């Protein structure tokens, strides 16, 4: 759990401890289970957010059931989520390691299949000038585009995760609150999980010799914050929250929309719910 126990910046820690102590905190973070955190923290001398330990000591993972929503109709492909994720989680800055990414689907007039690309495509890298800068090149400007949309992707934190099933040592596991995590101190680096994920959501950290993946920013959500990608999305295309809280953004998202999941036939039962994708989305 190196990624999540990594020391936070001092400024952020200070900010968090203020947040943790504040009574208004509960309401401010759209109420995903922060009530429990605040109540328990009041009985202690220090804010749960002030400690570096992980998960937050008085965080009760039986009280939450996290889920994620993506509204593809809102995504503008600005890729701030990708950048925020890379920075927040210290993901390698090249075009081959992503905990989250955005796909672009473009239907050209006269073509039956969508043209798909992502920011790791050489054309898009050439447009941005660097693998560490994420951009969608304006490559279809001379084509007649019939339909186009972006699809943000990330780990689906499946209810029946194929990656957890195949881990030979149990280094990766599903938490009580519905997040699939990796114990980086126990992973042997066999990459079986990378193979098993039907969504290509797992990556390998060559530097540390272990598998890596999206954690829904577990170090943030257990402190009542939003995942970094959700936090920075300027259009609200990414929604996150606690399904146990009927009024949370994700509960409302799932209740008020006709949502679908990716590759339901895999039997993995994903917990990232999509709105506004169509048949070509893989």
């Amino acid at each position, binding site marked *: 759990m190196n990624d999540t126990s990594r020391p936070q910046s001092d400024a952020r820690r200070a900010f968090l401890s203020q947040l943790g102590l504040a009574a208004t905190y509960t309401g401010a973070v759209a109420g995903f289970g922060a009530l429990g955190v605040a109540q328990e923290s009041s009985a202690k001398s220090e804010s749960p957010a002030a400690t570096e330990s992980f998960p937050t000591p008085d965080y009760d993972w039986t009280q939450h059931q996290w889920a994620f929503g993506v509204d593809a109709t809102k995504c503008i492909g600005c890729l701030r989520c990708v950048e925020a994720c890379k920075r927040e989680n210290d993901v390698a800055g090249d*075009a081959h390691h992503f905990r989250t990414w955005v796909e672009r689907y473009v239907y050209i007039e006269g073509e039956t299949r969508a043209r798909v690309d992502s920011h*790791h495509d050489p054309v898009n890298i050439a447009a941005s000038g660097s693998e560490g800068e994420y951009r969608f090149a304006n490559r279809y400007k001379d084509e007649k585009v019939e339909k186009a949309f972006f699809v943000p992707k990330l780990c689906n934190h499946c209810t029946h995760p194929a990656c957890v099933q195949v881990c030979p*040592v149990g280094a990766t596991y599903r938490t009580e609150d519905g997040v699939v995590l990796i114990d980086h101190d126990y992973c042997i680096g*066999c990459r079986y999980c990378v193979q098993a994920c039907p969504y*290509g959501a*797992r990556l390998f950290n060559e530097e540390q010799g272990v598998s890596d993946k999206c954690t829904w920013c577990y170090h943030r959500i257990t402190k009542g914050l939003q995942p970094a990608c959700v936090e920075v999305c300027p259009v609200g295309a990414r929604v996150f929250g606690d399904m146990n809280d009927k009024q949370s953004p994700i509960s409302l998202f799932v209740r008020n929309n006709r949502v679908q999941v990716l590759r339901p036939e895999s039997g993995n039962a994903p917990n990232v719910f999509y709105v506004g994708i169509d048949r070509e989305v893989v």
Partner: protein
Amino acid sequence: METLVNAAPFTGYVYPNETIIPWTVLIVVYPYLTGLVAGSFTVSSMYQVFGMERFKPVAHLALLVSLCCMLIVPMPLLLHLGHPERALNSMITPHWTSAFAVFGYAAGFYIILLILETWFVYRPYIVQQAREGRGLLRWFYQMLSLGSDDLSEKALSYDRKWIFALAVIGIPSAHGLHGYIGFVFGSLKAREWWSSDLMPLVFLFSAIISGTALLIVIYVVSCWLRKVPVDLPCLKGMAYALWGFMMFTLLLEGVEFASLVYRGREGIEIIMEYVKGPLLITFFFLQFGVGSLVPLTALSYMIWRGTTGRALVVGVTTSAALVLFAVLMMRWNVVIGGQEISKTGKGLVDYQPTVLGREGLLAAASLVVMPLILLSLAVKLFPPWEKRLTPSPTSNAS
């Protein structure tokens, strides 16, 4: 960081993380070596368990080949692991839902079994050397004899019982070990290229032909080196076995591929694009053409015409060498092929192996050669061609 990453170019759309092939050429070598273990053990068992006398000249050699390959089997895995020092975690805290969790136990069990069987087979020789040897070697054999000094008929008969029992247990163990590797691939639903119920069987039968082929080559080369004539009935027996099991292997591979194409599930277009493109050379030309059809035709011709003498030796050995190559290509086409077809079903990745480095071609080639080096040492210490090391096993069922 840059030097650590060996990114692969791609066409179409592939998931960003797929541009780094997770399982490299080392994971091609791993099932290849395991296959050789299972295959050569099969030949050894034909004599030890089924009492087929014609395989006697290679029975002990087969056991040594199996052991030498098996000792190297964990190496490609350890080299591949991001944290090899944690490898034993899979045995300390096995996660039973993982097909991989069994490997440590299965491999450990099988290595112990092989060592035990080899020890019983060579016990008379070890005891003899411990008595008659000189200097350091005598001391070495004395250590190995573990205090046993009894070469009476009663003791030898006891040995034979052990050898028979171990060989019987060894058959399902060796084949189980290899079949399970097929399961590691076949059970993955994320990759259409791998996801097949036939995968364990395809692996198993190709293992048997590769082990038999390796034994043919090693046996003929060893006869040539020792300047002794090749035992033709034995060679012919192995050629028959190779021919028969090749038929099964080709049939199974054909059925597997046919059902993949016939089912035509999502992503079949990209699979066909892959088959017609990058696979043309590695599969159709090398694995199927040069490695399978040519030796199969040659073997069929030799069996049909009753070829014998030098022509048989050259023909069978060449065929066997081609089969060895074909099985290596089969492992490549399965392991690398599965990863070159993107999970998106919309693109292909082009694996670019490095020559140097921990997961490079050089490391992989060294691992393939290493069992042969071990074997050349092993045959010096435990000559497998000595006559009457152990009496015939025909009476061992008693």
